[in-house]
């Protein structure tokens, strides 16, 4: 078991003036036994960060500690970590047993101890009957398990997962996600899991780190990240479909004003809110009301309706701003081309500073709408 801490960790490729910064001064603390997911778009530096923990990339600046011990200069094998790779990286010429045992054999463990550990891991992962096979005789899901088995037998302080599910088909991915959770509940090993898939991040994480362009945008539980995104980037990245971001407040005010006679003003969001804000609304927080717009309701022109089974997505516009509304399928559906109204509780609105992109906290207005 181990805690993991990042102190002003930075990474540059190249030297001097031509150096390309990838990660700049990153701080984070991960407690013993925690399951933390690093999520971000491709190229945000999340895999680089993971590989720096693993020892596969040099650490340009700052310190990474495992259990208080600085690991910057250590070889990967000395860091007490185990890694599961995106394409599993199983040794193709070795059987499953040999694959899992290899690290232990190098470490010089006694063969009965190796057999005990591999057998135990194989039972946990339900791959006991595959131990004599070669990786090419296994399905994608089975290879995935072997790769996890190879990590488990090392009994490391930290598990590192580098997008391990992206090569699986959708059904298997969902299933493996659950198994990774189950495994973590059983072993309670500190886990760092990198993915670009926000659904994966939301479902797996105890805490998630949202990264963008080499910096941390937000650290928090999936709930807090979803409910209170710290920046425009997080708001747009987490959630599917993403949060509606309304950038042109003046146009929005004009549209609501034209329809209701009382334009929506930034002040309606509460005190202390400046006019240069971006307003965000989650698709499920906008409720379609079948009544003409009046004060407090937003006029909504329905354009396209997507039926997803249990719910439907309704694409349309408020003034010039495109908005997606998520609605349960049991509710009456509007027709394309119809003019309806949206009821959005001001407490459900997120506001962001248009210049810095950071979240602006505001007191919810006292007036009930």
């Amino acid at each position, binding site marked *: 078991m181990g805690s993991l801490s990042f102190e002003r960790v930075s990474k540059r490729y190249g030297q001097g003036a031509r150096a390309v910064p990838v990660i700049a001064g990153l701080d984070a603390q991960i407690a013993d036994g925690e399951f933390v997911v690093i999520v971000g778009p491709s190229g945000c530096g999340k895999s680089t960060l993971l590989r720096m923990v693993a020892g*596969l990339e040099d650490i340009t600046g700052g310190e990474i500690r495992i259990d208080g011990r600085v690991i910057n200069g250590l070889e990967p094998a000395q860091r007490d970590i185990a890694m599961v790779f995106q394409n599993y990286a199983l040794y193709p010429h070795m059987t499953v047993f040999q694959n899992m045992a290899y690290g232990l054999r190098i470490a010089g463990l006694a063969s009965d101890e190796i057999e005990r550990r591999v057998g135990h891991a194989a039972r946990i992962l339900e791959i006991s009957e595959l131990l004599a096979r070669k990786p090419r005789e296994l399905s994608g899901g089975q290879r995935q398990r072997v790769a996890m088995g190879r990590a488990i037998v090392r009994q490391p302080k930290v598990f590192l997962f580098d997008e391990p599910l992206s090569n699986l088909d959708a059904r298997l991915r969902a299933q493996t996600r659950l198994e990774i959770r189950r495994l973590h509940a059983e072993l309670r090993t500190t886990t760092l899991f990198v993915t670009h898939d926000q659904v994966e991040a939301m479902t797996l994480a105890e805490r998630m780190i949202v990264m963008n362009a080499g910096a941390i945008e937000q650290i928090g539980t999936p709930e807090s990240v979803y409910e209170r995104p710290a920046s425009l980037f997080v708001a747009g990245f987490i959630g599917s479909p993403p949060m509606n971001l309304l950038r042109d407040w003046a146009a929005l005010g004009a549209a609501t004003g034209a329809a209701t006679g009382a334009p929506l003003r930034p002040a309606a969001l509460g005190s202390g809110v400046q006019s240069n804000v971006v307003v965000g609304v989650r698709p499920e927080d906008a409720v379609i009301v079948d009544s003409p717009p009046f004060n407090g309701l937003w006029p909504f022109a329905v354009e396209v309706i997507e039926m997803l089974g249990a719910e439907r997505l309704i694409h349309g516009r408020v003034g010039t701003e495109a908005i997606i509304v998520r609605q349960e399928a049991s509710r009456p559906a509007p027709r394309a081309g119809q003019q309806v109204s949206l009821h959005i509780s001001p407490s459900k609105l997120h506001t962001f500073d248009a210049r810095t992109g950071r979240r602006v906290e505001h007191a919810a207005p006292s007036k009930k709408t």
Partner: protein
Amino acid sequence: MVENRPALTVLTHLTLVLGVVIVGFPLYVVVIASTQTAQEIVQNAPMSLWPGDSIAENYRVALWGGVLNNGGRVAPAWPMMAVSLASALIIAFGKIAISLLSAFAIVFFRFRFRTACFWLIFVTLMLPIEVRIGPTYSVVASLGLLNTMTGLTVPLMASATATFLFRQFFLTVPDELVEAARIDGASPMQFFRDHLLPLSATSVAALFVIQFIYGWNQYLWPLLMTTNETMLPIVLGIKRLLTGGDAGTDWNIVMATAILAMVPPAAVVLLMQKWFVRGLVDSEK
């Protein structure tokens, strides 16, 4: 072939048969000649294409040496075959070991002048042994290695072709495999032994076949550097049998020796055919 026209089939088969005849007929003549007596070969012009009955005698004399009816002495072929076998094996294994290691260094390590090293090796591809044979001879002679197995094999060991082949193969080994091994704690040489070697087994087999034949068939280099009978490879031995001058050449013994010289490389090809093809085609990763 997609089309199925009888005329075309006949034509392709004719071409193939013709090819086989062109390649096979001289071999057939060699085999036949090695079963006749020297007189039979020389007196019947053209020589008979039916097997004679002195096969056992001819091969016994070729292999173990002896005195012929016409008084000529024949040196035994088996010590020469032993020299050939030893040098071919040493050359093949040496080449494979050296090229594996140099390709390993070039592909998996970052060191100064790495690219320069690779290009230096690569450029030697353009210099066959004939080009550098003068300087090589001078070096080997001044090291006092003439007429030794070391002198016979070491100068032929370095191989740009094999290094290049292994380099190309190593480049296809995914980075994650190297990284997984690093995380498992394997040292570079452990990675080499436990992963690279097993993965390159088929390439090694294919190269072994090629290099064994290369070593076995060496002519120019042994011709220059062996003056001692005990270090003569079999290929040179055949040349020795062609006496010329007043004594008539014992063609039956020459041909029998030629057959003997052909057997080991043929055996290597036949025995390792499966591996050889797999290595060249390359399949499993």
